[in-house]
């Protein structure tokens, strides 16, 4: 099986879809001639031409506005927002238009737009290149929200997103573009080739939207997480010698409540972890839902581990990042019963 890092896997997903479906177009700032600032679209314009892989002006709102119109006219736009921190100029087109078009037109108009955007910190990006705004998008009904944690899922979920007739906001945790990351910045970087999910088929396949994955079976506690934090949580649980069940949410909307709750009902304990700011982050919805569904099975309060409720500061990146220490502290609290 070929090895791919996440950049290659995402590139392969778009390559395959550009090849299979003449209506797929890729667009965004620097995605064409240059192949993207993270090189995720490298080579695609050369291969499919500049009418299928479009460089755009620097106007996120216009990119999404135009993509909606293209979608209405039968194309399947895959639009890149260069950093998730720069998606806000497109909020109105996403929230008011993309998310609601099918609804307001009673199913007659819709735009199958996929919005790809790199998120998360850990690359010395400071407060404007590190954000994880996924929580905001989960509150807007009518869009699906996806975040993969590894190359295999990245490719399969991106293909599924492009094929989906609903709009999808697809977050790419940029810290793990090149390798899994356990939250210890001083350890040598590990490539994806060391990870089973770095094995990625060359061809077409999908990973279904709306399905969480149990990435580690365990009995003592359920850790519910996504993106980069999947790897951090694995390391933290291992360091504590806990038999944790670790679930990668993968799709935030629609949420796979069954998989999450089956696990929590079994273990009786639950820790939720994400890199985004804690207050009103997606962890809140996870916690509230699990509490509603699993209350009678809980042996301790559901815990949340997250980024602090501050911007992501350049100098304190690793104090901000919810690393293995913070996860371990969270796990210890969840394991206690008075």
């Amino acid at each position, binding site marked *: 099986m070929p090895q791919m890092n996440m950049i290659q896997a995402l590139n392969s997903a778009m390559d395959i879809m550009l090849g299979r479906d003449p209506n797929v*177009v890729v667009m965004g700032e620097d995605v064409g001639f240059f192949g993207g600032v993270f090189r995720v679209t490298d080579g695609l314009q050369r291969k499919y031409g500049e*009418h*299928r892989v479009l460089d*755009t*002006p620097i*106007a996120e*709102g*216009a990119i999404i*506005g*135009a*993509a*909606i*119109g*293209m*979608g*209405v*006219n*039968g*194309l399947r736009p895959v639009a890149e927002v260069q950093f998730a921190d720069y998606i806000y*100029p497109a909020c*109105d*087109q996403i929230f*008011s*238009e993309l998310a609601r*078009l*099918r*609804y*307001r*037109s*009673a*199913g*007659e*108009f*819709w735009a199958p737009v996929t919005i790809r955007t790199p998120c998360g910190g850990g690359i010395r990006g400071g407060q404007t290149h590190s954000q994880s705004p996924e929580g905001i998008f989960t509150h807007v*009904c*009518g869009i*699906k929200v996806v975040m993969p944690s590894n190359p295999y899922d990245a490719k399969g979920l991106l293909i599924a997103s492009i094929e*989906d*007739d*609903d709009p999808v906001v697809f977050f790419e945790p940029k810290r793990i573009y090149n390798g899994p990351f356990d939250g210890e910045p001083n350890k040598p970087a590990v490539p994806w080739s060391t990870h089973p999910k770095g094995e990625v088929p060359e061809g077409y396949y999908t990973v279904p939207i*709306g399905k969480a994955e149990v990435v580690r079976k365990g009995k003592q506690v359920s850790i519910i997480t996504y993106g980069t934090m999947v790897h951090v949580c694995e390391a933290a649980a291992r360091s504590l010698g806990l038999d944790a069940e670790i679930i990668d949410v993968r799709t935030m*909307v*629609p*949420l796979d*409540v069954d998989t999450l709750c089956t696990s929590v009902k079994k273990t009786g304990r639950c820790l939720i972890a994400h890199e985004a700011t804690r207050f009103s982050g997606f962890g809140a919805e996870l916690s509230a839902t699990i509490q509603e569904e699993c209350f009678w099975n809980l042996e301790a309060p559901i815990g949340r581990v997250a980024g602090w409720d501050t911007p992501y500061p350049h100098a304190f990146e690793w104090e901000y990042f919810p690393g293995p220490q913070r996860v371990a502290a969270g796990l210890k609290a969840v394991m206690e019963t008075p």
Partner: protein
Amino acid sequence: MPRRSRLHIPHAHSRPGEAPDFSYLETSPAGAVARPDVNARVRDIGNLSIELVRVLDDDHRAVGPWHPHLDPSDLQVGLRHMLLTRVYDDRMQRSQRQGKVSFYMRSLGEEAVSVAQAMALRPGDMLFPSYRNQGLFITRGKPLVDMMCQLLSNTRDMCKGRQLPVMYHWTAGRIFSISGNLTTQFPQAVGWAMAAAIKGEDDIAATWIGEGSSAEADFHHAMLFASVYQAPVILNIVNNQWAISTFQGFAGGEQRSFAARGPGYGMAGVRVDGNDFLAVYAVTQWAAERARTGAGPTLIEHVTYRGAAHSTSDDPSRYRPKDDYEKWPLGDPVERLKNHLISLGEWSEERHAALVQELEEHVLESWKEAVQYGTLTDGPRLSRDLMFEDVFKEMPAHLRKQREQLRAEQGG
């Protein structure tokens, strides 16, 4: 406390209690503006965005290079659509006053814009309207009953009860879903046109906003993308002089025409007398040909006047003189086309009166039929289950659950 301030505040030219004052309006005589080749370079036709293209003169004659030479029968069709729009508006306004409809917006005085443009475009061209373009639907032949059912949110509502009245759409008629959010359709139309160009199809897109809405970011987004990719699109600003209570100066019209934004973005800009059916038709035809032949997009500013209130929620006597509309220098589009046809010997007051009556009956008949399918308050209602559909293509579990909850809540 009052401080010396150098900030310029635009001032409406007349306010309630004052005499209407339209001295600010810059016009050109009918026939005075040259008609350049559709392939003219933007830099050579900057005058089109400052002068005012007009065809009908004060003696009701069609003059000058923009005269589109339409058959009288086409003019009669145009007159009919404009009148139908007006009669429909009047009747729906009354239905709102009677509490049958929750909200309504008339297009009084602006009928020529929608009707002439719909006629000048091809059926395959895709239209992205604002809420004041009912004339597009009417001209393309959307049955009034369908439109009324939307207003009533009843069992035949094309929007399944989800949208505020007047937010129609018509897939078969190639008219996009109207949004309550201003200007969002502008870049979407450009994207649609870009897709047509990518696919090598001949259809073009056209879209409309009010002058007030040109302040929104999406105006710029649309202008920029249309210019960069030379998208086959017509971008229309309907300058009816008023947003809600703020006049066009608050959207930038005090310093420069709206059409002038076109050349600023390297795009053709044309300022046209929006109450002159023939001029609007001719300018649209010119812009459509430009777009279709790959000569680029056009921004059209239609200079017109909002004859009615902004909507049924609004009372214009609070912010402008009561008789403003009567004093509008560019007259009334229906009257002007009617008089032109009469001057051609192709129309008469009698035929006009008969047409009005026919249309009134048609509207009334349609209304009678529409209310049979239910109103907001009476009669058959849509199933509440519909509320949960079309959020996604397939209903996810949490919405199925909520649908059950609602059924339980309402007993059954």
